[in-house]
């Protein structure tokens, strides 16, 4: 494959997903032939065509880009009502989908077949010829609406079209006025949108000229709804929104408008200037709007006047890129717009795509909505081949078994034994190939999470009033899909901490002689069988003396313990549960908020977390993670005749000790390990098994995050690759066991949960003296 092969395959994968969406929407449209097309549906198809155009342009796929552009054009005219969705239009759209699919096949092979090129040209021509405009009404319904001409002038063509459509159908139009604080208006607005969407159609969102305060921003939402004003008011309860109805004159031909009472909210509503309306806007010649098909969507350029600079104004309606399926967003930095409000908005949109159902809080999770892994078919083919060879080996072994049976009690020939040995070796090799092939299929680049986090960083930085340069490297490092998914939340937590509390405000930084913009970096690197992910900032660092004070105050450590602790150990106190509380947030500038949760999450992934910090130079959190959880290497140990498996990635070393090496401190058993005191626990005692007097012990020293502990066992059986299976719903509450595995003799062997054992061994109330 050529050097661009990987990029190309990514393009093909992305484009396939877009085509899938297109296909689905077009099918729905096709099913409802003859009915009036749902504007949301046309918008969806329009957006998909638009993103396909962008994507194809990015990868230099001219023909796809041009065809998608043609589709987009047509759809734009459809959604603006300049064209009626009829059978010819639909047929052309369906056909272009076929052509796009064929073009994609071409692209993946690196070919340019001329037959497809002619089809593209033919379709584009058909698109442009399709021009039967919608029958214009005698009277522009918009003229009947009492709307300030100034307001009307800023509507986009599409908004105007929707407004007209609503007036014509006699849908009551409302002005929803809401005042937000500048710092969080995007959230407030997103909430308002999600409340309004189920009861009607948001036609336009306009920034208002009169914000209530200097730090506030007000919006007028033009909203069409068939429900009564009372219902509407109850839907908006709890939001700062104020309702007022836009009066419309009855049409000349007597279409009756739904009469709805106008509820006045209790709040002294500053009547929006525009609703003290001029009875009729001057006829604007808008009934058949001059076509501008080459500018399919340019809401901001269409708005006259100076009061809506794009940066302070969220998009009036979801723009094409916002409601795409999540995966499409990430690899397309060009499609992510520079102004931030819309980004926050887009994240909100992901939570409630479909406008129904509970709104997901922006911060709750960055996990993807699906558990699917996209696997290259060639990887699957490779696996299939391996399975085929395994079947051959099985046939050979079967034949040999049959031979041996027929020879009965005769001594087996040397040749037979050699053949058996050869087949076994083959089997082993092929099984290895199968295993690594399967693992490879589960791997995804961590960049998937990094991209999501990058978007988040800008928003958090803006909220916190910090200036941040965010740098992420190593996104191509691959990890098991499950781990990548589980990583997003802990990483988000750490990054949020770094921006909120690690990094100083710009002025402070300048005063301290640092650069005004702080650097926060996210770095991934593969080291052997592990991946190290580091989040670092160049902020103020953690004050370990404050950590010590807080830990003492909260009785997490004793004075004596504190006196013995070195700087590193003090820093690690921030991972203790109960260290961070709301009160401490202010005292400790919030460092350590929920870090125990982060630590737990990482521990669940069999990972380690470590912190480095230097005052006024910055802080770094380092996560060390196994490449996969599906198959891990384990140390198999024996205790009282039982067998257990210990994940090797948490085993630091193995000691052999005599009973006299065990000391007690405060009636707790400890080991003296090279001058350091190591907590010590006997697995048999911990599990309540009959203890056997073996004279000497093997001690498995385990470490997770910062904790270290020695676990005494009777026997060591060696290492083995194991597939851990969770114990399942009924047994989830069992502590100290993370799952079960099968070592090949059909007996189930339990896998120890080192993190839980460490906690049990450490916490004072569970001392086994």
């Amino acid at each position, binding site marked *: 494959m050529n050097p661009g092969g990987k990029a190309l395959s990514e393009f093909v994968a992305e484009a396939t997903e877009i085509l899938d969406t297109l296909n689905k929407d077009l099918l729905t449209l096709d099913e409802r032939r003859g009915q009036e097309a749902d504007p949301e549906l046309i918008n969806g198809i329009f957006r998909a065509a638009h993103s396909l155009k962008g994507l194809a342009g990015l990868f230099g796929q001219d023909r796809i880009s041009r065809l998608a552009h043609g589709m987009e054009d047509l759809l734009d005219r459809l959604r603006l009502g300049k064209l009626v969705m009829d059978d010819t239009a639909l047929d052309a759209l369906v056909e272009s989908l076929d052509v796009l699919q064929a073009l994609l096949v071409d692209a993946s092979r690196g070919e340019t077949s001329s037959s497809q090129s002619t089809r593209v040209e033919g379709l584009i021509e058909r698109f442009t010829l399709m021009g039967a405009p919608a029958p214009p009404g005698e009277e522009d319904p918009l003229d009947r609406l009492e709307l300030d001409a100034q307001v009307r002038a800023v509507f986009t063509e599409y908004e105007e079209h929707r407004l007209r459509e609503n007036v014509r159908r006699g849908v009551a139009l409302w002005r929803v006025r809401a005042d937000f604080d500048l710092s969080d208006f995007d959230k407030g607005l997103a909430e308002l949108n999600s409340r309004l969407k189920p009861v009607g159609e948001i036609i336009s969102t306009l920034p208002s000229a009169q914000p209530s305060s200097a730090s506030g921003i007000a919006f007028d939402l033009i909203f069409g709804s068939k429900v009564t004003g009372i219902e509407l008011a109850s839907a908006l309860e709890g939001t700062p929104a104020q309702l007022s109805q836009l009066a419309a004159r009855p049409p000349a031909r007597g279409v009756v408008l739904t009469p709805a009472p106008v509820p006045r909210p209790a709040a002294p509503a500053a009547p929006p200037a525009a609703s003290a309306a001029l009875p009729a806007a001057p006829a604007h010649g808008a009934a058949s709007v001059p076509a501008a098909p080459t500018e399919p969507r340019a809401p901001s350029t269409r708005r006259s006047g100076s009061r809506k600079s794009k940066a302070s104004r969220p998009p009036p309606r979801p723009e094409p890129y916002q409601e795409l399926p999540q995966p499409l967003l990430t690899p397309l930095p060009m499609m992510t717009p520079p102004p931030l409000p819309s980004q926050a908005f887009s994240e909100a949109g992901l939570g409630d795509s479909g406008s129904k159902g509970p709104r997901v809080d922006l911060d709750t999770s960055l996990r993807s909505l699906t558990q699917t892994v996209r696997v290259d078919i060639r990887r699957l083919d490779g696996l299939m081949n391996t399975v085929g060879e395994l079947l051959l080996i099985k046939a050979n072994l079967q034949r040999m078994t049959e031979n041996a049976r027929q020879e009965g009690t005769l001594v087996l020939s040397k040749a037979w034994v050699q053949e058996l040995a050869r087949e076994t070796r083959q089997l082993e090799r092929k099984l290895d190939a199968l295993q690594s092939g399967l693992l490879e299929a589960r791997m995804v680049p961590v960049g998937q999470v990094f991209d999501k986090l990058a978007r988040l960083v800008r928003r958090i930085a803006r909220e916190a009033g910090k200036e941040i340069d965010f740098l992420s490297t190593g996104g191509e490092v691959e990890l098991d899909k499950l781990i990548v998914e589980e990583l997003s939340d802990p990483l988000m937590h750490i990054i949020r901490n770094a921006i909120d509390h690690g990094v100083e405000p710009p002025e402070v930084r300048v005063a301290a002689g640092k650069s005004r913009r702080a650097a926060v970096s996210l770095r991934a690197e593969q080291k052997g069988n592990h991946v190290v992910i580091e989040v670092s900032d160049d902020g103020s660092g953690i004050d370990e003396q404050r950590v010590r004070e807080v830990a003492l105050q909260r009785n997490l450590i004793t004075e004596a313990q504190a006196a013995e602790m070195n700087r590193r150990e003090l820093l690690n106190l921030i991972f203790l549960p109960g260290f961070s509380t709301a009160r401490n947030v202010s005292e400790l500038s919030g460092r350590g908020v929920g870090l125990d949760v982060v630590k737990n999450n990482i521990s669940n992934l069999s990972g380690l977390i470590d912190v480095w910090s230097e005052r006024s130079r910055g802080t770094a959190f380092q996560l060390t993670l196994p490449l996969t959880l599906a198959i891990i290497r384990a140390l198999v140990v024996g205790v*009282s005749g039982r067998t257990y498996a210990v994940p090797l990635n948490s085993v630091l070393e193995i000691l052999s000790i005599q009973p006299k090496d065990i000391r007690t401190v405060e009636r707790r058993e400890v080991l003296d390990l090279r001058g350091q005191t190591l907590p010590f626990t006997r697995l048999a005692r911990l599990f309540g098994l009959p203890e056997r007097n073996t004279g000497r012990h093997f001690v498995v020293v385990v470490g997770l995050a910062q904790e270290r502990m020695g676990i005494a066992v009777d026997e060591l059986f060696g290492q083995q690759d194991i597939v851990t299976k969770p114990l399942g719903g*009924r047994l989830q509450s069992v502590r100290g066991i993370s799952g079960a595995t099968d070592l090949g003799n059909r007996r189930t062997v339990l896998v120890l949960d080192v993190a839980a054992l460490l906690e049990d061994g450490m916490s004072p109330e569970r001392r086994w003296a």
Partner: protein
Amino acid sequence: MSRFSELLDDFFYRPDEDVGGLLEFAAGSDELQPLVPEETPEEYLAFLLEGECYAVPIRSIREIGKVPPLTEIPRAEPWLLGVMNLRGDVIPVYDLKLRLKLTDKASLVAGPDAPPPPRLARILVAHTEEGPAGVWVDAVKDVVRLKPSMLEPSPPGLGGERDCVVGIGRRNSELYILLDLEQALA
């Protein structure tokens, strides 16, 4: 023998004749309500626990198997005997005897010190809301068809403090203690 006496012979009771159905009919007619003609019998799996005969609806049972090696779960409740490997799935196995207070000592069936399981002992794998669960039984008896009319509510005070026992089934002279596995394994 005349043809008439042959007919007569058919009519009279013979000691080797199976009259279970008649007895059932008689038992049903004892009640004042007339028999509901459309009542459909349900199949129950009957098994023994400490010599008593218990039964559960057979559709709640996924499979019945011999007792595999069980792995005990340290620090678990006493009625959790351990886990077993069922074709690659890890399934917990429970001891109902403790739950039903038939005994107060957990039987030693898992771990290296356990004796080999009794020849007749079986594990029933049941469907439950929280996934499959194994249940130790001393022996599987048979499958019985019980009509709703053969069921009676359980006398008070049965089944420990939980409502594991939902009723008594009576067929001929046999008594079946009907269990609610979902409750018993909760």
